[in-house]
């Protein structure tokens, strides 16, 4: 969560009370002297929020806002090739910085092109604010050129949205949307900006971004339940922590690390929670869910107390809900009361801010759980279920090797973006995660095409960190045009396309569950991605042998500007472990035979 522009509620109220009168006086005096346009008020609001980058695409109805940015120096606008690129870049920017990323688009197709990315941010609770142009209010409802009901369309996929049709309050509306995206459970917000609102003139001045008075996210959990939960955990014989994305979003990684280490509790991570706890720590107990590791899934299945922090227990994590941690009392820490007992009943609901609640639990613990046998068992599972692969000389390149090699050659704080599919799972499994905000991908929505724009947003958010995107050939083809932005901005990023000439995850499912009928999943007509990269003005590289991998990676890293590595991998390679959809997590398959047995 941002510290940049958030001020505490009390301070806000004081400021509001003391400044109310003076603004009223000012407004009265200058009522006849408009000082700025609505568009300038929008820009003021963004500036007050400390926004540095905007990602967008120009267009008719949003032109006044762009015009107000013309002479602006504090904020940099990055023109993207497509609005989907803008929203994913802004989303990744938000993941890496913790502050809402900002994307802009015009009305109609501009706004609808944002939809996928807004839905993505909504599923992953990513802080994001979208500003969309809209036809002038007197045309709204008439099916005007490039009119679409953006508010209606985005209502189910935003935390908050507002049709801002008053020039005097448009700046405040943008501030409110920014603050709501940032505070409490983060998420996407949208402000729809009719052209007459942004072109109109106003004498209103724009204050700091602030949430509505009625918005009051919880901070501290109920102390009675905290004590009960701590007692249950302190006497647990088989405890495990499940760190979700909320640990990272809530800046609670230090608290989690101290808590787990002080009481020697093994820590598993969800996909969004990956990086919250370092995988180099002996207490790390792997990654959980459908393609998670055996040590994590067995620990969760067999535990007697499960501490879920900032996780919504989604189906890719739990598998069959009837077999999910069925012996466990669940301590569920979440800032959103609606997540409590939504999918898995919480025996100890702890509603509050992750960092605060972990501190509360820490203080309430009477000691380390009596779980030495369990800790040994957890270590045994780690030994029994390593992520391992063979590299026969006469067979094509294994994708796992490319990921591991890249990890080995780069610093710990390297940011990894990924699209969606097999390549994403290999990146997740074979990278060694030690830091939060380094794993930037599409979790809940599963948006193919996320990687390239995300790498752009991530690099701008963290210019001093290396950024690599692992992408699939199918995923890459969905947003490859954003390379033009990386070239124009001369961003030092590398896109590694793990190219198996297929929508690999679908192909894997077809082989596993549809009798090998590979309908519409194979892409033998794939272009030469290295050549495609060169056409964009990026460095294009190709690798298909083990010997070439290290050299190619170094060539990409040393190049001044974006590189694309077209890595031709074994097209037959599948992702394991795998829990078949809706299956029992403890019965994950390690190979095709297991999968057959489980069907």
């Amino acid at each position, binding site marked *: 969560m941002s510290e940049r522009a958030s001020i505490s509620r009390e301070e806000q109220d004081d400021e509001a009370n003391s400044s109310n009168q003076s603004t009223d006086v000012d407004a009265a005096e200058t009522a006849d002297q408009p000082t700025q346009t609505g568009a300038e008020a929008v820009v003021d609001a963004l500036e007050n929020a400390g926004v540095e980058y905007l990602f967008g695409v120009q267009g008719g109805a949003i032109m006044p806002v762009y015009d107000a940015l013309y002479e602006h120096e504090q904020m940099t606008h990055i023109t993207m090739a497509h609005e989907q690129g803008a929203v994913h870049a802004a989303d990744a920017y938000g993941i890496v910085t913790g502050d809402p990323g900002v994307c802009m688009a015009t009305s109609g197709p501009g706004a609808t092109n944002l939809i996928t990315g807004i839905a993505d941010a909504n599923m992953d609770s990513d802080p994001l604010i979208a500003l969309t142009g809209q036809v002038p209010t007197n045309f709204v409802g008439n099916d005007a050129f490039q009119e679409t009901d953006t508010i209606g369309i985005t209502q189910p996929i935003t935390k908050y949205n507002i049709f801002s049709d008053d020039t005097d309050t448009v700046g405040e509306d943008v501030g409110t949307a920014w603050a709501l995206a940032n505070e409490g459970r983060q998420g996407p917000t949208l402000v729809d900006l009719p052209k007459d609102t942004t072109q109109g003139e106003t004498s209103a001045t724009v204050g700091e971004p602030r949430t509505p008075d*009625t918005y009051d996210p919880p901070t501290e959990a109920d102390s009675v339940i905290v004590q009960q939960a701590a007692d249950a955990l302190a006497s647990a014989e088989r405890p495990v922590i499940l760190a979700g994305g909320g640990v990272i979003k809530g800046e609670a990684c230090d608290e989690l690390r101290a808590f787990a280490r002080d009481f020697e509790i093994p820590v598993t991570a969800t996909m969004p929670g990956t990086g919250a706890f370092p995988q180099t720590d002996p207490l790390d107990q792997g990654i959980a869910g459908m393609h998670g590791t055996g040590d994590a899934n067995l620990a969760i299945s067999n535990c007697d107390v499960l501490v879920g922090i900032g996780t919504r227990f989604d189906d890719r994590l739990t598998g069959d809900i009837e077999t999910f941690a069925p012996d466990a009392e669940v301590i569920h820490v979440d800032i959103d009361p609606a997540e409590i007992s939504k999918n898995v009943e919480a025996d100890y609901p702890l509603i509050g801010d992750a960092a605060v609640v972990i501190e509360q639990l820490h203080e309430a613990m009477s000691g380390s759980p009596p779980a030495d046998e369990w800790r040994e068992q957890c270590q045994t599972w780690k030994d029994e279920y390593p992520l391992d692969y063979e590299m026969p000389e006469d067979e094509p390149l294994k994708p796992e090797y490319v990921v591991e090699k890249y990890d080995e050659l780069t610093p710990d704080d390297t940011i990894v973006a990924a699209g969606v599919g097999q390549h994403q799972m290999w990146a997740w499994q074979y990278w060694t995660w030690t830091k939060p905000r380094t794993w930037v991908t599409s979790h809940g929505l599963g948006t193919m095409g996320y990687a390239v724009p995300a790498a752009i947003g991530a690099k701008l958010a963290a210019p001093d960190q290396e950024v690599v995107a692992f992408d699939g050939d199918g995923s890459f083809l969905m947003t490859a045009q954003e390379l033009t932005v990386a070239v124009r901005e001369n961003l030092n990023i590398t896109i590694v396309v793990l190219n198996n000439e297929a929508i690999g995850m679908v192909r894997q499912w077809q082989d596993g569950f549809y009798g090998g009928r590979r309908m519409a999943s194979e892409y033998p007509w794939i272009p030469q991605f290295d050549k495609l990269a060169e056409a964009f003005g990026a460095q294009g590289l190709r690798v298909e042998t083990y010997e070439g991998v290290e050299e190619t990676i170094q060539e990409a890293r040393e190049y001044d500007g974006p590189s694309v590595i077209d890595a031709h991998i074994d097209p037959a390679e599948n992702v394991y472990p795998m829990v078949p959809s809706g299956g029992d997590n403890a019965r994950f398959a390690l190979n095709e035979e297991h999968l057959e047995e489980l069907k």
Partner: protein
Amino acid sequence: MSPGELPGPGPDERMHPKGRRNKQGIRIDPEAEAHHPPERAVLSALVKHEPGVLAEISGLFSRRQFNIESLTVGTTTDDSLARMTIVIEEPRPGIDQAKKQLEKRIPVISVRELASDAIQRELVIIKVNGDEPDKVNAITDMYDGQTLDAGPRSITVELTGNEQKINDAIDAYAQFGIRELARTGDAALARGESPTAQVKQPNQAPTEAQVETEVISDD
């Protein structure tokens, strides 16, 4: 060897838990499975009175598949607020989830589930064939209704009451042939001094709606 395969004991050679959960994610005693039959719940929500809120709330109920029986909305003594009364039929975990999802929306100020003794009233307007006006009037009197319009061919009456009374009345009028009817769905308030959903902001002067509620609860 299958591509990508990993080492380790197979599915049957592992430690497995003994327990189970039900479909709602609740741990169950295998011998006495918890069962949650659907129940009727009346939710009262105080919401900001602004465009799009009704669509937002009805959209929420449809996309999360909550079974909604009726939804009414109207203004309050505070022009900036509206009260929604929502009747849903769901198993207990679904009712709790519906309340929390409602509370989460930004324009929703507060939500309360009303007790079963809450005051619930619905209005219905029924237009029946006018062939037997005396009999129609007798039934209207019986249900404390009012005749709004009477002509040679049709009679239109108005009734208010709880859901059961309205259903009974409709059954009674059916003998004349009901041409059309319109029901409003339940509006409801908590009984006695206990407040219905109300504004609660510690650092603010009470709104008109709050004052109103306080006055009522003082009675």
